[in-house]
């Protein structure tokens, strides 16, 4: 665990130092006694899995969140960073993944938003000066572009450069970047690294969040690893190997065992995806799911997992490749997929999977109406019988089928979504983060349910960021990276470390 006694071992004095920062959100401790220091002219890499606390730490740095406990020191003096304005005064600038740019203003207006040079009359902007000042800032970071170009017409990489220009123009001494290369090509990333080099030489301190191992070793001067809201270690790239870093990020989690009866030998192929590409950013996806299997689909958030699920379900158009379901090709809209027997159980079940104000019974039968009532006449007692049967079968904890779904717990809501597709006769269940927002006890019930589904002849494709769950529940798994399948892991290869290694950018 973290050792808070060894904070200052390096040269001069830290430019900014956080000591013992804690931050609690309802139900989760986002940061637990984290200490962290950045020195002028260094690139400090911040590493951790999704949910390790990187974003929370960043938001505290820039004053968007205030910490529940802990202190912030700027050049050795205790300061209070309780608002973004104060953070800015200290020279802290953050470049978020979602840019803080206004699409229909030009580059110059964006760089100086809120700090426009005054013109001759009050409120009037000195147009010539704002363009000149913007040009100077853009030149200083080596970005050659006309500052009167509207931001909406720029590509992602160029918008990133505008963000950096904006930060530099505020005399930022501490620059925080959240996965800045996520949307950049290699060439653009090289330009960014060159710029980072120049900023370092100017004594700017850079906090750099990354998921790419190669970057960590290419530009990092120091590494802090976070896990579950705690600082696991702080070290130098020379003292560590990528494998070691991965192990630190994953940690040794408590043993969790979920009930799972692995099939001796899986049944016939239910879903076969061949060379699937879509405009949503996935390409060349090959996936096979057999009856009786739970197949994992993992990778970092944004690696294209959800996009694959949506393409299979027909929710996004496919540009290339083939999806064969139950022996026959499938293409078209979600209603086609649903009729053929594919169920997509979305991550945001509240907005996409359930009608929260309607009753448990209504929600359970809604996808099965055509099957239950082929003559298109609704029979309430029939519907009630079907709903009651499912409530018993899935052990949904509800006073009656008439209860509004919104009043149930997360785990029971999830069961209603599953039951809905079960009633419709689904043969393939695609789960997107099935345990998000569900407490530990309910999780194992959900997994028991999925296990029963596949034991009875269904097949499941499960997207999850919880690698440990994938490892415990899945027969095998595909790991995605940058919209492609980076690798396939069989049951015996299925470990958290292997998943992380495949999912990271280690070139």
């Amino acid at each position, binding site marked *: 665990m973290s050792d808070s006694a060894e904070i200052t071992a390096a040269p001069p004095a830290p430019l900014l130092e956080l000591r013992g920062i804690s931050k609690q959100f309802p139900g989760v401790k986002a940061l637990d006694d984290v200490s962290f220091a950045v020195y002028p002219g260094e690139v400090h890499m911040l590493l951790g899995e999704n949910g390790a606390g990187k974003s929370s730490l960043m938001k505290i740095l820039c004053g968007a969140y205030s910490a529940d406990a802990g202190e912030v020191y700027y050049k050795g003096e205790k300061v209070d960073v309780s608002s*973004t*304005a104060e953070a*800015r005064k200290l020279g802290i600038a953050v470049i978020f993944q979602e*840019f*803080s*740019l*206004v*699409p*229909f*203003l030009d580059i110059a*207006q*964006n760089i100086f*938003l*809120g*700090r*426009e040079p005054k*013109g001759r009359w009050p*409120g*009037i*902007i000195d*147009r010539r000066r704002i363009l000149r000042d913007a040009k100077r800032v853009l030149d200083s970071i080596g970005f050659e572009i006309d500052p009167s170009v509207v931001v*909406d017409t720029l590509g992602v990489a160029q918008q990133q450069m505008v963000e950096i220009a904006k930060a530099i123009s505020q005399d930022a001494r501490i620059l925080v970047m959240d996965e800045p290369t996520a949307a950049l090509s290699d060439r653009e990333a090289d330009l960014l690294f060159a710029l980072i080099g120049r900023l370092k030489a100017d004594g700017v301190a850079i906090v750099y969040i990354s998921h790419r191992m190669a970057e960590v070793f290419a530009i990092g001067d120091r590494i802090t690893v976070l896990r579950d809201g705690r600082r696991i270690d702080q070290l130098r790239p020379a003292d560590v190997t990528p494998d070691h870093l991965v192990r630190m990020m994953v940690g040794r989690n408590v043993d969790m065992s979920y009930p799972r009866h692995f099939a001796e030998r899986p049944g016939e192929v239910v879903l076969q995806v061949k060379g699937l590409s879509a405009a949503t950013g996935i390409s060349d996806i090959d996936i096979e799911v057999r009856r009786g299997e739970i197949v994992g689909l993992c990778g970092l958030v944004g690696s294209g997992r959800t996009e694959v699920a949506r393409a299979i379900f027909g929710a996004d158009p496919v540009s290339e490749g083939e999806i064969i379901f139950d022996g026959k090709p499938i293409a078209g809209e979600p209603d086609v997929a649903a009729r053929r027997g594919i169920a997509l159980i979305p991550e945001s079940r509240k907005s996409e999977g359930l009608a929260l104000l309607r009753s448990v019974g209504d929600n359970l039968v809604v996808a099965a109406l055509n099957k239950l009532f082929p003559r298109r006449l609704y029979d309430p007692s029939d519907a009630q019988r079907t709903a009651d049967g499912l409530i018993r079968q899935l052990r949904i904890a509800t006073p009656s089928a008439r209860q509004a779904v919104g009043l149930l717990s997360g785990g029971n809501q999830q069961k209603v979504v599953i039951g809905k597709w079960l009633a419709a006769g689904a043969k393939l269940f695609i789960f997107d983060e099935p345990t998000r927002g569900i407490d530990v006890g309910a999780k194992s019930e959900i997994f028991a349910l999925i296990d029963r589904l596949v034991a009875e002849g269904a097949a499941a494709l499960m997207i999850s960021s919880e690698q440990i769950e994938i490892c415990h529940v899945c027969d095998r798994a595909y790991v995605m990276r940058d919209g492609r399948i980076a690798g396939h892991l069989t049951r015996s290869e299925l470990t958290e470390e292997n998943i992380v290694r495949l999912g990271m950018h280690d070139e």
Partner: protein
Amino acid sequence: MSDAVVIGPIRAVRRLPGVAIVLVLLIGLFGTIAPGFLSAANLANVLVQSTILIMLALPMTLIIMTEGIDLSMGAVLTLTSLCVAIVSLATKSMLLGLGAAVLVGTLFGLANGWLVAIAKIPPFVATLATLGMAHGLSLIVSDGQSVVGIPHSVRDIYSAQLLGVPVPILMGVASYCIFHALLYHTRFGTYVFALGGNREALRYAGLSPNRLLIAVYAIGGMMAGVAGLLMTARMNSGHPTAGLGLEFDAIAAVAVGGTSFERGNGWLLGTVLGVLAVGVLRNGLNLVSLPSSVQVASVGLLVILAMFLDGLRSRA
């Protein structure tokens, strides 16, 4: 290269915004079928009649840029028009009438802004509620009757000329110039783009989106007050339903003019062209003696046509 030369003119037309094409088509249509449409007197008449709509549609553009809407504008205009009539009748002063109208209009605008920014009521609902309140107040203060016998000083504004140009046209042009400067050359205008485009960016820049939003709606109310003077002058009376439904024309003009209802993309000149398209359409249909019910329906069609043309253009 020779290809480019050949398709050049087509490209140029394609690059024209839908609203400009629509306006040209409408002028061509009515120039052909409506007798007297192209006469100088009639064209001046179109401009004069468009002034009130310009005064509503310009602030409406700003409001829509913030991803909002103001449904109360027509009803507030009616109320301010009555204020002009009643106050100028009582005091014999046009300026006091205008002052009262601007005050009442601005108060309604502030109320709209407060409801939207602070009370977080969706703009559609908030301004629908104030529409009802303004309409009710109009009926109360006028007792459901027209207010007649107002001073000449009010009426004369509509017919007066300055250097041979009708005063309403000058007021419309002045309004455009002021809004143009406000939106494109001031800090405030810059922040209006950000209100719809990226409100977080304003917050990170240490600005208060709520106060800016209130100001945008207040400007809308204020302009409804100024337009109230013209409305009373035009009718030579205050009438309790005079401006009802004008918000429809104003929103239509903004939509036709190519302002986007999301992400803060607005175009003031497009709004003016949209207002003129609506004005030309109503005037032309009048000349060929179609009833006003047809006019309302055709404004609806106009919106769809302009959207369709813009859609074609963005796909091309």
